[in-house]
């Protein structure tokens, strides 16, 4: 919850800053800009609201059956949601801020800018939604029949895997969405192409979060044999950490690629096809570190 709130606050601060800049540029449109800023902030906040729901659930439901495994599951749920909301909160701030600024530059486009901002920031929330799914599964699944010893580590790993990997994807998706709002304000004709490129770019930058989700599912449901050896517990925990941290970089990196691609699609409409292909090839290469992390995680889970 705390982490989620930090992210949302950062995102909203960025939005408010750019909205002020917009107001300074074009004081007459202050009503529109203010309205857009509030809508954008509301979306950025939804990541924090997800975190709040999880925190409330943890407070009211977590204490029913106090055994050690449940504690580990609850801790993992909190971590997953907290980290997951952090990225999406920051990310959703970018499109909101750029849209506010864009309305001041190009008041005629305020309608389509707001729509584009909403689409972009809704896609930014995907990593937070994935993190929330893992958190809810951790809270509500019944792990009592599983052996305590490697399972506590697997649960913690599952939470960390999705949570950490969602940070990068959330921020990355936000960068692309921000650039698209900027591009539409600059070149209103590019609306359709920019939105399509943004969606494809965001989707690819979410891939690390999805790998994180996959590792989390495997950790949650594969059922480890009981063993008190240290390595048996550390392997799933390590797998989660590996996927989580491995996902941060590619998520942000892919977001940067998508950001520039979207920005240049807005400036150079004829080359949309070429830009999209180049973006995908670049992202595929940047993605390979996430794939390495996933392979290492799978090896840690299944071989050791």
């Amino acid at each position, binding site marked *: 919850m705390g982490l989620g709130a930090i992210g949302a606050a950062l995102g909203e601060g960025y939005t408010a800053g750019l909205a002020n800049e917009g107001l300074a540029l074009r004081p007459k449109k202050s009503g529109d800009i203010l309205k857009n800023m509030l809508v954008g902030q509301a979306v950025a906040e939804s990541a924090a609201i997800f975190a709040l729901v999880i925190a409330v659930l943890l407070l009211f439901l977590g204490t029913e059956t106090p055994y050690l495994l449940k504690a580990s599951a609850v801790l993992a749920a909190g971590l997953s949601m907290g980290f997951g909301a952090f990225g999406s909160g920051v990310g959703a701030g970018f499109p909101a801020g750029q849209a506010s600024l864009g309305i001041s530059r190009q008041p005629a486009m305020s309608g389509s800018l707001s729509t584009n901002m909403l689409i972009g920031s809704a896609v930014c929330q995907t990593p937070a939604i*994935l993190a929330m*799914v893992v958190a*809810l599964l951790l809270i509500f699944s019944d792990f009592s029949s599983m052996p305590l010893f490697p399972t506590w580590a697997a649960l913690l790993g599952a939470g960390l895997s999705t949570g950490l990997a969602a940070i990068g994807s959330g921020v990355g998706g936000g960068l692309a969405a921000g650039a698209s709002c900027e591009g539409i304000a600059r070149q209103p004709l590019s609306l359709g192409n920019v939105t399509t490129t943004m969606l*494809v770019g965001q989707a690819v930058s*979410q891939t690390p979060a999805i*790998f994180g989700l996959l590792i989390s599912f495997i950790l949650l449901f594969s059922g480890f044999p009981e063993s008190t050896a240290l390595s048996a517990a550390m392997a799933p925990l390590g797998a989660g950490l590996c996927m989580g941290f491995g996902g941060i970089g590619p998520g942000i990196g892919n977001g940067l690629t998508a950001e520039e691609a979207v920005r240049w699609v807005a400036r150079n409409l004829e080359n949309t096809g070429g830009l*999209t*292909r180049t973006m*995908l090839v670049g992202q595929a290469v940047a*993605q390979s570190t996430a794939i390495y992390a996933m392979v290492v995680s799978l090896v840690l889970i299944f071989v050791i």
Partner: protein
Amino acid sequence: MEDLGVIHQLIVPLFGYEMTFNLEVIAWTWIVIIGLLIFGYLAKRNRSIVPGNLQNLGELFINQFYELTEDALDRRLARKYAPLICALFMFLLFCNFLGVFPHLGEPTSDLNTTLSMGIMGFVIAHYVGIREKGIKAYIKGYFEPIFFMMPLNVIGELSKVISISFRLFGNIMGGDIIVLVVSYLTFSLILPPFLIGFFFIFIGAIQAFVFTMLTLVYIAVQVK
């Protein structure tokens, strides 16, 4: 909360293996298919120069996706693959919207549906790649830029299937679970309709579009 994760399954033993059918998902998928067939029939029935409501809607889908396909591929390939892309989008859109109705759910909240769609897109993309470039250039593509990158390229291709299908599945199932949990916490007052509107209609439409565009782009990457 007890119905979270309960699936009605039909398990059929066959030659020593067990075949599992998720009955509800199959029923929902058939509802979508029949709905689409009825829509297609009604849209086509009274064709005229001045289109009626349903014909307009149908033309909207087809025009949009034909143009997107032509942008990504070229004119010749677009004539061939635009129907596929358009049908894929309409199927996924109706699937995602089905959850709005009470007692129904989205077929896409089952990993089997999304994974089979993902595998279908993967197979088609590679088939088109082999057909257009020839088998030699296709295999050579795996040894780019240096020959020892081959295993990585293969894993990269396979990971596309995982990412595309888990993205749709995670979003739709996540929306389902969040609506369920929030309804449970608020005793189904006030909030759930807005959440259903956001997750099932808004996110559903966006994710159907993303899935379709990614399938199209994967085909385009194989061709060029």
